[in-house]
């Protein structure tokens, strides 16, 4: 990793200093993200908010891999988030699985679901792709609603509180909010490292090329559909991990998690922060949840305010908070 990434910097620092600044930001993006996540609980008003930013930020990062980097607007990512959460919860509640087995099962199940939904949706394009992913995720929602004996139906899934985590003879108190936050953060950090690695890889170049010009990418010799399916599945895996972390955190899985409003919220967070940038989705999740937290103190109609801000962003700052900041920095 070090040898290859330092050559990224070597290539990119050559032309100007400003590009060098950007290259360093890219080079250090994972350590910087982890540092920011470490500090998050101490700058935000509550531990609960910090934990939500962590989980939803990770969710948006997973979504951004597909939307921001591959250029596919999925409206069904709640399905993978929910699949991760439900499978983790069911594994513990119904089968008494250990927390790490439940976590692994949740991620794998979400990835498999993404693979299947990907196969079915990737043959379509543009608005049709969005609609097919929406329809298929609604199918998952109604399945969870009907299979109440497994999922708890409308009441959500309960009864799988993880009080302590045991691993290799170590025991961690998972009821302490601070400890819990940092345990969850370890998984989020690993996922961020994985995503950064993908973006840096040859495959990362392929999905960007597909986003930029599908026809050209195909003429260059890339199997566009297969590449999209891989990106879709990887994105689903990350979102499923976010779901399993949410299940472990809340110790319940609300049915809402699968609702299309969740899919919409993921899109909003990603756009608000800046699609197609590494830090954007976390910034977007932070902005969204902070607005919700602050405005809901003052009115229960917080969605009106958040919605208005979102519309203003789409109209006037389509690159989002982080994307716009990067663009300003580049122009200065």
């Amino acid at each position, binding site marked *: *990793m070090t*040898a*290859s*990434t330092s*050559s*990224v910097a070597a*290539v990119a620092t050559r*032309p100007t200093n400003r*590009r060098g600044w950007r290259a360093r930001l890219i080079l250090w993006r994972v350590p910087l993200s982890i540092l920011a996540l470490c500090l998050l609980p101490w700058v935000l008003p509550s531990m609960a908010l910090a934990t939500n930013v962590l989980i939803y930020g990770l969710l948006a990062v997973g979504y951004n891999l597909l939307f921001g980097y591959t250029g596919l607007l999925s409206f069904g990512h709640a399905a993978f988030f929910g699949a991760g959460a439900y499978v983790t919860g069911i594994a513990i509640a119904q089968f008494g699985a250990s927390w790490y087995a439940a976590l692994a099962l949740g991620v794998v199940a979400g990835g498999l679901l993404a693979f299947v939904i990907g196969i079915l949706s990737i043959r379509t394009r543009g608005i049709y792709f969005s609609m097919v992913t929406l329809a298929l995720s609604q199918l998952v929602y109604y399945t969870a609603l009907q299979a109440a004996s497994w999922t708890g139906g409308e009441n959500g899934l309960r009864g799988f509180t993880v009080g302590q985590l045991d691993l290799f003879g170590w025991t961690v108190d998972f009821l302490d909010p601070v400890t819990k936050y940092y345990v969850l953060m370890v998984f989020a950090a690993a996922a961020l490292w994985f995503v950064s*690695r*993908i973006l*840096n*890889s*040859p*495959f*990362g*170049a*392929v999905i*960007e*090329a597909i986003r*930029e*010009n599908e*026809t*050209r*990418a*195909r*003429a*260059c*010799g*890339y*199997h*566009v559909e*297969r*590449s999209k399916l*891989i990106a879709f599945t*990887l994105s689903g895996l990350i979102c499923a991990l976010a779901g399993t972390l949410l299940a472990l955190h809340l110790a319940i899985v609300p049915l809402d998690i699968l609702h299309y409003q969740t899919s919409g919220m993921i899109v909003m967070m990603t756009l608000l922060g800046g699609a197609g940038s590494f830090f954007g989705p976390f910034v977007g999740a932070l902005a969204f949840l902070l607005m919700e937290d602050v405005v809901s103190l003052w009115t229960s109609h917080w969605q009106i305010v958040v919605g208005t801000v979102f519309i203003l962003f789409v109209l006037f700052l389509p690159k989002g908070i982080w994307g716009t900041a990067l663009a300003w920095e580049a122009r200065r």
Partner: protein
Amino acid sequence: MSAPLLAVENIGRRFGGFVALESVTTAFEPNKVTAIIGPNGAGKSTFFNLLSGVLAPSTGVIRFKGRDITRMAQHRFAHLGIARSYQITNIFPDLSVHENVRVAAQAFHARYDIWRARAALTELDERADAALAVVGLASRRADTAKFLAHGQQRALEIAIALVAEPELLLLDEPTAGMGPEETKGMVALLEKLARERTILLVEHKMKMILGLSDRILVLHHGRLIADGSPQHIQADPEVRRVYLGQNDGYA
């Protein structure tokens, strides 16, 4: 006559009731430049799309180096050694000029690799720079592709095709939309490329084609109406009637 690089037998393409191309049979030898001309709607672009796998023919067979490639998926054409440019500029607009070409070269090395760093494929960087040098864009390598001038974007598209080291290069109107100066530059580039490659090009600018091509095919209403050397085509009364007559200015 050496063995043909590409041969087509009776290929045709219908769109519903409309016959865009009707039963064309011909072959292309290696290391020759062949131009395809014809009035608008003659079937030139359809012919090109069939040869590059964008469309599958309704009838007929396409053979590349003797191998039947008629129903092959489009993305595999590049791996066979057939690369193309498009009539409307077709680049990766938000990527750097260098990355445009580098990612094209990468298709032959790593398509699904998510573990290595892309910068570790240093050989591709060099090949991309070499291709950019050929088309005269070496100094613009770090710029974002969409900020290039039109003519430079066309040149970039040719670099994207060239970096694949294709045995057959298909160029769809490489000088479309270019002014006289830009056209001159492109013609010089094509002359340079013509020395060592098999090129098929669709063009409208007669003067340029006559100087550049070894052979000219003329399409009209989806049929091949003439095939021969530039001198032969210029003298052909049928061609003069349907095509050249409309372009006295160029001829």
